[in-house]
């Protein structure tokens, strides 16, 4: 056996890959195929599926009722991505320009809140934002700054806030990694060549940090699109995203095939986004 392994190094490589291959096929590929197959079947009365092939689920997906939620989810995910970028980029820049020993402390500080469960943190936001009993509204009203509670809860604002909060580190870390690699001697060179602060940023720092920005945007956009905890809690059950509808199809409406069809549509959309990302990354490498 040993002799065989020594004679065929490729065989050894394949043996090493075996556990990962097994894992991917059984726990990743198989569920994906099941979702795909279910999306073409009919619903069973109490959940499950009836094995009759149909396109009906995909026709329903484009029903305005669901499709508009889908579009709204894209809008909320985009908004979340843009806002995390606007907050995250300066933060990443700030961290990357500190002395090295301070950087690690700051990165750690950024991560610490995320050692707590996302659900619990989202409930914490609930106590802050709730319309009548939320901390922010009660304080502002008791100080007499406002007389009516602000609409902080049960709307898109609350959802986006929760998502931005949740995914901010996923935006900051890749940008930080890109800026950390950036030679700040280049900004001096730009200054020496008559570029003041903004042109230096636009012509030198920004282009060199784009790979980090793209990675961060993907890492924020994809989970935001499929989010269901933040909209379920902070959206107050009124403001829904596609993730909530999918979980409802499986858990409440017992319409597995339709849930599967919605999932398939979303995955297709995300796959397209990821392909665009890899193409952009490849172009970045070519430079």
């Amino acid at each position: 056996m040993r002799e065989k392994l020594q004679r065929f190094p490729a065989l050894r490589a394949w043996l090493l890959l075996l556990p990962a291959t097994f894992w991917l096929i059984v726990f990743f590929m198989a569920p994906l195929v099941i979702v795909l197959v279910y999306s073409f079947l009919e619903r069973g009365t109490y959940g499950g599926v009836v094995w009759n092939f149909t396109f009906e689920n995909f026709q329903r997906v484009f029903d305005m009722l669901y499709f508009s939620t889908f579009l709204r989810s894209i809008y909320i995910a985009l908004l979340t991505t843009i806002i995390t970028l606007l907050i995250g980029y300066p933060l990443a820049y700030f961290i990357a320009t500190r002395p090295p020993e301070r950087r690690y402390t700051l990165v750690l500080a950024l991560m610490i809140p995320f050692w707590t469960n996302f659900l619990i943190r989202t409930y914490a936001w609930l106590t802050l934002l709730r319309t009548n009993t939320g901390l922010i509204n009660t304080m502002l009203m008791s100080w007499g700054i406002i007389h009516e509670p602000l609409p902080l809860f049960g709307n898109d604002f609350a959802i986006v806030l929760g998502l931005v909060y949740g995914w901010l580190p996923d935006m900051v870390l890749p940008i930080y990694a890109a800026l950390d690699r950036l030679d700040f001697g280049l900004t001096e060179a730009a200054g020496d060549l008559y570029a003041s602060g903004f042109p230096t940023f636009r012509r030198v720092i920004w282009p060199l940090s784009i790979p980090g920005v793209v990675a961060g945007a993907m890492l924020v956009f994809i989970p935001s699109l499929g989010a269901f905890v933040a909209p379920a809690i902070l959206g107050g059950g009124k403001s829904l995203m596609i993730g909530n509808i999918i979980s409802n199809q499986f858990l409440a409406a017992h319409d597995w095939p339709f849930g599967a069809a919605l999932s398939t549509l979303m995955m297709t959309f995300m796959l397209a986004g990821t392909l665009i990302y890899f193409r952009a990354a490849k172009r970045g490498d070519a430079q």
Partner: protein
Amino acid sequence: MIDGFAVELRQVVKKFGQVTAVDKVDLQIRDGEFFSMLGPSGCGKTTSLRMIAGFEMPTSGQVFIGGEPQGYLPPYQRPVNTVFQHYALFPHMSVYQNIAFGMEMQKVDKNEIQQRVGETLEMVHLSGMDNRRPKQLSGGQQQRVALARALVNRPKVLLLDEPLGALDLKLRKAMQVELKILQDQVGITFIYVTHDQEEALAMSDRIAVMNQGKVHQLGTPEEIYEAPANRFVADFIGESNFVPGVMQKMGPPAEISVTGTEQPIAVEWLEDGINAGDAVVVSVRPEKIRIHPMGQAPTYPAMCRLSGQVEKVIYLGTDTRYLVRLNEESAVVVRLQNIISGGGHFNEGEKVDIRWDSAHARVFKE
């Protein structure tokens, strides 16, 4: 230009926290000069250069460029350009875009940019490389792009921060010649920072030798090599012997008794502040010393003579180095050119006399 100096530093001090990097430096750099700041790392040469460029602001004192006080002007408002040690080329831009960058920032007309980039590329022998990325160039080519990117802006002064440091020896020697030719061609003042004394000697019109934030000597390469102002300069530039002794007589002629010998030797030049009875060192360059078989050295006036024994002979091709031990405490290196092939005129263990012209000896404080 009011005072005729391209760059002037007046009483410039730079402190980083408790550390004084540059300590009350006065420098006057003439228009069109190839001026070097030379010293070991941490001597304040790079900090001085960065204060001229505007990357650092002086703690006190003033930097003048073309007679104009620079105050706290940022780099992009100063009429100088820099060639950085590691080139700092923009990796995401082509050679053309790198070189055009400064002119674009100054809103130079597009056609003029194109023309000037072309001319400058030709000047640094990189024509046709316009579309390459820095990564696709060799170290020497990157160096030329860095040079072109600075020169194309026609600055009043070009600042060069150890620009050849990253190149291998052969390429460095070639670039030294090329830089010198280029400077004659463009007529721009070059301020050149280096820790390589040979490089500074080979290229400069004048050199400021710096150590611990101070200028120790300012002069032409010849002045600095032949007449070092203090022990640091004598030690840092080229090779020097330091023979310890005691100041015997202030003169003229001044006399020193070399430790371990009886006969005093005559010296002509003394560092300021030396008094009779002080411990001193006599500094002589190895190639200024002659070596003779014991008792055969000719006697001239103004010749200093010491006896010793050859301890080590090292053959170096163009010349041979002899380590001659005078006594237990001191030994002297003598360098003889190998004019006749075969080298070894003296053997290890041989008793010899060495002599030098007293004009070639410098006496420094111990």
